[in-house]
């Protein structure tokens, strides 16, 4: 084992991770340098420590200070478990969002690096990438720890948190190795159904993760974990937390026991990760056969009023892109995530009684903002998602309209599905009357139309065809301006209905018609602008 090779590999992998997310020259330089990140981590601990010290000692009233003192030990003990959990979650999301093209490990495979060196380097790199979470938690806990004389417990929590970070990184490394090979065997055998299963699993995982991060569930989980941490002593993931609790209780035996067990657990996971890497060392390209049937082209379709042959070809390709590319599945998952999040926030966890529903006025933004966001995101990214393969559209005899129309229809298809789904969710939980339900639906359709076209304009104006670890498909500025304008236009479209609710509730239905007309005007203007922009885009290839 060559420590220098491990260090160099860790640095390269870290830079690759960090630079894959950072685009501007300045941020790329700051976050692309591991030394600067380390300095920032230390500064974060010191800064947050000082801030929390000042806040707890001088700003908080005595009663709250006493409460902080009571929960400080539990908070410190919770840091290691929370870190492992967070690293695994972030790692899974990052894995899901990565395109297969950006996952090539060929370069590493050519180099004389052994599995143990690769895994060591990769684990160090992952721990380093997620070190900001460690700094954040430890920084927040530092101030109260100094104030209440718990510096020894804080140091113990810091050490165990580093172990937990490494434990989380080992799990991610194992998952990577498994997904590299085992899943490819699965796809090879199951073909089309394997791809569908992957899409479904990705959506379920993303919905699950999103729900875990919703405030109510986090509070619920934290309470449960802290209460049951001692009872769950046999679960290896809580051993580092139990070691911290032992420090706080002055139990040397407990510290030695759970500290040693944590280290052994880390070593076992490391051994497994190395073993997996060794077995699945060379990633084989997935050769998935989708059908055994002979090729038979479709007869000329009868969709000519809606789409011509070229447009239908792009429409089908884009739908396949959404369902078959794992980095695109996150966009398909967003509607489900939003519906599940809204559903969970409207239903109490205890299940005792439904909360009082918001008024119709408040329901409108609750309904329209997610629709606007989803249609905006999908249409804005629809051009950039072509990636480096976009040259095929440039060289094809397509005009701007033929390029944009299928992308508009794909967005509208998903948007309309979501509009109906969300209306049903809100209708069920908020007991909306039929008249209001219709008004909501009309508004939803107007927003789908306008946001789909507006998103296309920004997608064509600010496309980002680069394929990186986590491709954005639209530039940061483009997405920011686009989303902001999208929200403003959504509010503008809904304004006749909102005003009518406040001033003249009996005319709400009529005002919905005016709102729809506004939506049509925005749609028509955006559509024209998008076509003009796409024409310019097609003149000069940007890859």
């Amino acid at each position, binding site marked *: 084992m060559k420590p220098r090779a491990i260090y160099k590999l860790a640095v390269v992998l870290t830079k690759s991770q960090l630079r894959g997310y950072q685009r501007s020259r300045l941020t790329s330089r700051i976050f692309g340098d591991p030394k600067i990140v380390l300095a920032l981590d230390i500064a974060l601990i010191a800064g947050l420590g000082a801030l929390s010290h000042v806040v707890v000692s001088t700003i908080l009233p005595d009663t709250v200070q006493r409460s902080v003192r009571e929960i400080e030990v539990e908070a410190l003990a919770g840091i290691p478990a929370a870190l492992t959990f967070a690293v695994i979650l972030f790692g899974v999301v990052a894995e899901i969002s990565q395109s*297969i*093209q950006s996952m090539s490990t060929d370069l590493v495979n050519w180099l004389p690096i052994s599995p143990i060196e690769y895994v060591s380097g990769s684990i160090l790199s992952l721990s380093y990438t997620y070190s900001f979470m460690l700094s954040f938690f430890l920084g927040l806990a530092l101030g109260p720890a100094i104030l209440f004389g718990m510096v020894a417990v804080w140091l113990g929590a810091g050490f165990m948190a580093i172990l937990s970070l490494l434990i989380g990184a080992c799990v991610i490394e194992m998952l990577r190795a498994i997904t590299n090979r085992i899943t490819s065997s699965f796809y090879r055998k199951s073909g089309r159904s394997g791809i569908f299963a992957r899409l479904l699993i990705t959506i379920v995982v993303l919905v699950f993760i999103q729900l875990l991060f919703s405030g109510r569930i986090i509070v619920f989980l934290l309470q449960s974990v802290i209460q049951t941490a001692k009872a769950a002593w046999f679960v290896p993931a809580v051993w580092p937390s139990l070691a911290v609790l032992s420090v706080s209780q002055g139990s040397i035996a407990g510290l030695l026991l759970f500290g040693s067990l944590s280290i052994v657990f880390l070593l076992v996971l490391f051994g497994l990760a190395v073993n997996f890497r060794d077995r699945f060392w060379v990633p084989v*390209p*997935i*050769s*998935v*056969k*989708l*059908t*055994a*049937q002979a*090729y*038979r*082209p*479709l*007869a*000329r379709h009868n969709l000519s009023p809606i789409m*011509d*042959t*070229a447009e*239908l*070809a*792009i429409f*089908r*390709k884009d739908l*396949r*892109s959404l369902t*078959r*590319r794992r980095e695109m599945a996150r966009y398909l998952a967003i509607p489900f995530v939003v519906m599940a999040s809204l559903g969970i926030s409207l239903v109490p966890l205890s299940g005792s009684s439904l909360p009082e529903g918001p008024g119709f006025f408040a329901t409108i933004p609750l309904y329209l903002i997610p629709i606007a966001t989803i249609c905006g995101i999908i249409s804005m990214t629809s051009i950039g998602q072509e*990636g*480096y*393969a976009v*040259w*095929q*559209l*440039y*060289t*094809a*005899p*397509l*005009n701007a309209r033929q390029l944009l129309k299928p992308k508009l229809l794909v967005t509208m298809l998903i948007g309309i599905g979501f509009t109906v789904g969300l209306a049903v969710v809100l209708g069920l939980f908020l007991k909306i009357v039929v008249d209001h339900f219709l008004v909501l639906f009309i508004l939803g359709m107007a927003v789908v139309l306008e946001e789909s076209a507006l998103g296309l304009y920004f997608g064509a104006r600010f496309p980002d065809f680069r394929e990186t670890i986590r491709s954005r498909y639209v530039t940061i500025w483009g997405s920011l301006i686009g989303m902001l304008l999208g929200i403003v236009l959504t509010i503008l479209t809904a304004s006749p209905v909102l005003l009518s609710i406040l001033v003249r509730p009996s005319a709400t239905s009529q005002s919905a018609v005016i709102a729809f007309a506004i939506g049509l005007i925005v749609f028509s203007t955006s559509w024209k602008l998008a076509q003009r922009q796409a024409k310019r885009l*097609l*003149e*000069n*290839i940007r890859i």
Partner: protein
Amino acid sequence: MIRALNGVSLSVNEGEVLGLLGPNGSGKSTLMKIVVGILKPDRGDVEVFGTSVAKNPQTVKRMVGFVPESPRLYEFLTGIEYLDFVADVHDLDPAAKHERITEFLRALDLEGRESELIHGYSQGMKQKLAIIAALLHRPKILVLDEPLNALDPRSARIVKDLIHKLRDDGIPTVFSTHVLEIADAICDRIVIMYEGKVLEEGTSEQLKSKAGSQGSTLEDVFLKLTGTSDVREIVEALSR
């Protein structure tokens, strides 16, 4: 400001294979992208069979078959879905589409693999697919940027013979390569480019005679014209 191309003026005749030779960064790919209408020149124009690329890019794109250097394909599609997509974008008749696709898949040894996702294809298979896609719509002119990259000898031979066959049918080809032997064997006329300019053009024989010494190869001409003839010193330095 660096000019990718500077004062380039060329013509390709019907039934002619024009080879573009030049070191990396000499402007070959840029020139080809301008010819196929996916890059707009600051000045000047390209005409394909009398049609201005700048004024009628779509008409030109219908006439051109293009293979870029290291083509990136839609890897989430199967080979057959990809070819079907390209044929539809060119609005081919379903019967003609079926016939052309089946014929090409067989000729380039992709039969039996067409229902697999492109992601699992080797580089050579992807290159073959890109070549088929360029030929599907019976283009009137071919623009091929390093088309023989990664091809196995049999497929390379098929593509070379195909270019000759198309030449005999009157279809011109603009062809770039780094492999001088290929240029020598395939091209009727060769253009040597360097730093965005045309240094020399002519038949292989004409260029060789310009090298000055008897028995000169195309490589000698190329190295002499592009000023990279000091290779011996470099090799010696590397082997130390």
